[in-house]
């Protein structure tokens, strides 16, 4: 049976549907990515799955427990960690672990064993007496994850866990998540970083409370199967965009760093036409060549389609 089963899940705040008939399933041990812009309904969904918010309609089960029927039982089976987690800053590493172990009802022997595990995992052995406030970002984040999984929950929710953390720590953090998943823990993670989403087994993109796309990254990239994306390197990206955005053979354009991505309607045979148009207008083109779609291309396309 799947670890998370969501069926027609809906949550309204007054007239506004923050989550609108959302359905998806997450297999045990899967790393499931949840993508969406701010306000798309990611956090509302997670809060319902954690038993913190009652769904207006629809149903969801986590590890076999219905979230609206038994929210307390759900809480025992999940770990939750967010970007603004939420350690007690004045307390030491050790005291934070004791507290979270305590409220999850761990007895002394189990707490001691788990404490050692968490300190090892987070690389905090020898730093037990430091105050949480004095830890650097990466350590704090790993301690937070450790506190969230002290009670060995089968399902873990991570709500933008890597916000404000340096790239090295982010990579380290994802290594821990891979470990968790390998040991059979199901992970549902929301993120803004599209490169991180590549770590996920499957991804759901939600927009305005609805599911816009779901699948592996390879599956998601299939939306560009019959279209071509070209990357145009130029010294004047803004002017280049303005020039080709309304061209008949160009579907849409977007800026990627210093270059421009253009989606061509008829595939590679349009490339020369686009290049000629730019050069004719006096915009120098350093290179123009087809590129495989990135997750960002997919995200922008899907969100635009779902509009």
């Amino acid at each position, binding site marked *: 049976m799947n670890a998370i089963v969501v069926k027609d899940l809906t949550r309204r705040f007054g007239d506004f549907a923050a989550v609108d008939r959302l359905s998806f399933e997450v297999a045990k041990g899967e790393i499931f990515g949840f993508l969406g812009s701010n306000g798309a309904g990611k956090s509302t969904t997670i809060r319902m799955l954690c038993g913190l918010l009652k769904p207006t309609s629809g149903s969801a089960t986590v590890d076999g427990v219905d979230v609206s029927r038994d929210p307390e039982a759900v809480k025992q089976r999940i770990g939750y960690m*967010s970007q603004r987690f939420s350690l007690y800053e004045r307390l030491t590493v050790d005291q934070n672990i004791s507290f979270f172990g305590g409220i999850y009802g761990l007895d002394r022997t189990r707490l001691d064993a788990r404490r050692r595990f968490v300190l090892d995992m987070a690389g905090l052995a020898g730093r037990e007496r430091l105050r949480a406030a004095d830890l650097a970002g990466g350590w704090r984040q790993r301690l937070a994850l450790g506190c969230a999984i002290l009670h060995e929950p089968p399902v873990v929710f991570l709500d933008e866990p890597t916000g404000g953390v340096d790239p090295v720590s982010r990579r380290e953090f994802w290594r821990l998540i891979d470990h968790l998943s390998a040991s059979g823990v199901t992970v549902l993670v929301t993120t803004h970083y599209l490169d991180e989403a590549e770590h996920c087994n499957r991804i759901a993109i939600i927009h305005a409370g609805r599911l816009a796309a779901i699948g592996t990254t390879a599956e998601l990239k299939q939306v560009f199967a019959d279209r071509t994306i070209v990357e145009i390197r130029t010294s004047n990206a803004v002017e280049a965009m303005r020039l080709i955005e309304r061209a008949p053979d160009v579907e849409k354009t977007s800026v990627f760093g210093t270059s421009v991505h253009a989606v061509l309607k008829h595939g590679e045979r349009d490339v020369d036409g686009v290049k000629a148009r730019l050069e004719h207008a006096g915009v120098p083109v350093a290179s123009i060549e087809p590129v495989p779609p990135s997750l960002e291309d997919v995200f922008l396309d899907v969100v635009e389609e779902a509009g």
Partner: protein
Amino acid sequence: MRKIAAVARKEFRQIARDPRTLMTLLFVPLFVLLLYGYALNFDIRHIRLAVDDRDRTPESRSLVAAFVNSGYFDLVAAVDADPKKAVVSDRPAATELMDRNDVRAVLVVPNGLGRDVRVGHRVDVQVLLNGDNSNTATTVMAYATTIIRTEGLRYAARAAAAAPAANGPGASIRVATPLVTVEPRVWYNPQLRSALFLVPGLIAYIAMISAVISTALSIVREKERGTMEQVRMAPLGATSFVVGKVVPYFAISLLSAVGVIVVSMILFDLPMRGSWLLLLAALSLFLVGALGLGLLISSVAETQQVAFQLALLASFLPTLMLSGFIFPISSMPRVLQVITYAVPARYFLIALRSIVLKGAGVAAYALELGALTTFAILVLTLASVRLRRQWT
């Protein structure tokens, strides 16, 4: 139970590591006690007095001496309203001294006082008072009246004793002695020291403020920091969280209140005529109500700033103004009197004064203890209903 203990232990550790909260709970109360205890003094002494003695006889001098020896007045100037008698011409007139606030009272002894009282005639002595502070003026007037009346009786006795010798047998001076006199005995606070009246109020006031504010802030801080959300994700009921949170504040508030009481006994000679056990019981009931009020506020406020203001409004003002701490409830307008029934400090003060000053038994303030219990149950129920609704 283990979960509650975990919350309580965490809270103790946080308080121990947070100098601000620790100060609020332990040292601010003592500081406030000293500040108010010494500054809030309704006893009036060292009243600056000027004397205008136009008589200059042994009798007039003994009247002036009676003022000085009473211990209430300090003789700071002698005035001479009568220019003919002025020894030093630049002596200021009485009005000038009063205007400049150099003196609060002027005693004017009329010419002929000695002569008249020797033969048993009635004499009027004038006392000028500065009425800009009506409380002080009333008290000074009472002191002056008492001194003058006592001195008048002494004159009369002396005149009566001297009368036979001076006027021969048969002549008599009628000394006006009142047939009914007042023999006041003030119980519980014989010297009428205002400290004994104020300190119990102060104890209630301090305990209320620190308990309400610290509880309200501690929960709202968790809301602000996001730790509350984290804790709500755990299988920990709202009740366990609240109980675990309140226990440390209750213990510390109780400790702090007992500290304030002990210091009051040392510094302000507050007696302890009743039982400590009853005192602790009344104090505990009062504190539970205060903590409940703090919880209720924390369920309304979303930021520490709002919580602080609400807590101050709900604890500081009513306890100061409407509890009988400083202003007697019986002399308040009817509407305010009705409001005082909702102020827990009102009941606690009655119980506290009964225990500490009177040593009275439970029967004397059973009603008040009942009211405190009702208040505590009421706010705790309200707070837990609200907090539990916010929990899931």
